[in-house]
C-alpha cells in the first residue's frame, strides 16, 4: 500500500520568523564553541563502528584519525539535538508522523522513493566530505563568515541541484508518463 502525498503549494511557512531566529542561533553557536556543521558526524560514526569491527584498520586510516572521535566533538551533540528538535517540532504542533512523500513523478512506489532517498543520501555525504562541509558547515556557517569556500560550494550545489530536480520532472513528462 503506497501513500501518495502532495504538499499544498499555496501553504505558507514561517520562514521569515525562523530565518531571523536561525541567524541569531548561528551567532550564539559561534560564541559558544564554533560554527554549526553536520556532515563530519557521518564519518566519525563510521569510525566508531570500524574501531569495534576492525580496530587495526581504523587506527591506521588517516581520514578517521583526521576527523577525530565521535563523542569528543560538540557537533555530535548538535546532531543528536537535531533529532530531538525534529521530534518536538512535529509533536508540539500535534502533527501526525508524515506520510512518505513522493517527490519525483517517477516515484510511483515507496520502494522507488527509498531507492532515491538512499542514492541521494549517499551522494550528499560523499560530496560533502570531498568539499569538507555540507549545507550547514559550508553554506550556512561558511557564507555567514563570508568564507570563499562557502560561496563556491553553494554555487556547485545549486547548479546541479536545480538541474537534477528539473530534469527528473521534465524527463518524465517527455516520456509521456
Amino acid at each position, binding site marked *: 500500500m503506497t501513500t501518495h502525498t502532495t504538499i499544498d503549494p499555496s501553504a505558507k511557512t514561517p520562514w521569515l520568523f525562523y530565518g531571523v531566529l536561525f541567524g541569531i542561533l548561528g551567532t550564539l553557536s559561534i560564541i559558544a564553541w564554533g560554527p554549526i556543521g553536520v556532515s563530519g558526524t557521518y564519518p566519525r560514526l563510521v569510525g566508531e563502528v570500524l574501531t569495534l569491527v576492525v580496530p587495526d584498520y581504523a587506527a591506521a586510516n588517516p581520514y578517521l584519525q583526521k576527523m577525530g572521535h565521535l563523542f569528543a566533538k560538540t557537533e555530535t551533540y548538535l546532531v543528536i539535538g537535531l533529532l530531538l*528538535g525534529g521530534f*518536538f517540532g*512535529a509533536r508540539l504542533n500535534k502533527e501526525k508522523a508524515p506520510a512518505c512523500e513522493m517527490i519525483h513523478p517517477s516515484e510511483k512506489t515507496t520502494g522507488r522513493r527509498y531507492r532515491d*532517498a538512499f542514492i541521494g543520501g549517499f551522494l550528499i555525504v560523499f560530496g560533502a566530505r570531498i568539499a569538507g562541509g555540507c549545507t550547514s558547515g559550508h553554506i550556512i556557517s561558511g557564507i555567514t563568515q563570508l568564507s570563499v569556500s562557502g560561496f563556491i560550494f553553494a554555487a556547485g550545489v545549486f547548479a546541479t541541484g536545480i538541474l537534477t530536480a528539473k530534469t527528473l520532472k521534465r524527463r518524465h513528462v517527455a516520456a509521456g508518463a
Partner: protein
Amino acid sequence: MTAFYGLLIGVAMGFFIQRVRASSPAMIVRNLRLENLSVIKFMALTMAVGMVLVYALNLVIPSALHFDVKPTYVLGVLLGGLVFGVGFGIGGYCPGTSVVGIGEGRKDAIVAMLGGVVGALVFTLVYTTLIAPLVKVADLGKITLADVTHLSPFVLAVIVSAVFLVAIKLLPTEVGAKR
C-alpha cells in the same frame, strides 16, 4: 559544557528546520525546481542576519567569537558541491535535514541517513588514494571575502546581507502556479 550547548543549539535548529518544512523532501525539491523559494529564502535570511551579527560583534568583543573558516581548495570544494547537488536533487535531503526528518518520523529519512553512512564508509575507504591528492589542488587556504577584497569584514557583511535581503524581497516565494 560545549556538548550541552551543542545539544541545545541542535534542538533549536532541528525545531526551526521542521517548522519551515525544510525537512520535507517534497518541499526541498519544489525549491530546487524553483517552484517555491521559501527554504532558499529561509537560508538566505539566516545568513544575512548571521553575518551582520557576527561581524558587528567582532568589532566590539572579538575574543567572544570562535570563527572557523574552512579552507578553499577550489577543485575539491566545487566538485564536492556538484556531487552534493545531484544527491540533494534526487533524494531531497541534506545531511542535517535527514536527521530532523527521522525525528519527525519519516521512514525515507532513515533510508537517506543509511545512504549517508554508506557514503561516508566508501569515502573513508577511498580517501587516501582518490580524495587526498584531489583536495590539494588549488588550495587557497582559509580565506574570506575580506581577504580577497581587502575591505572591512563588517562592511562586506552589510553589503552581502543587503544583496540577500533585496533578493528575498524582490523574488516571489511561490513562483507561478504549479503545473
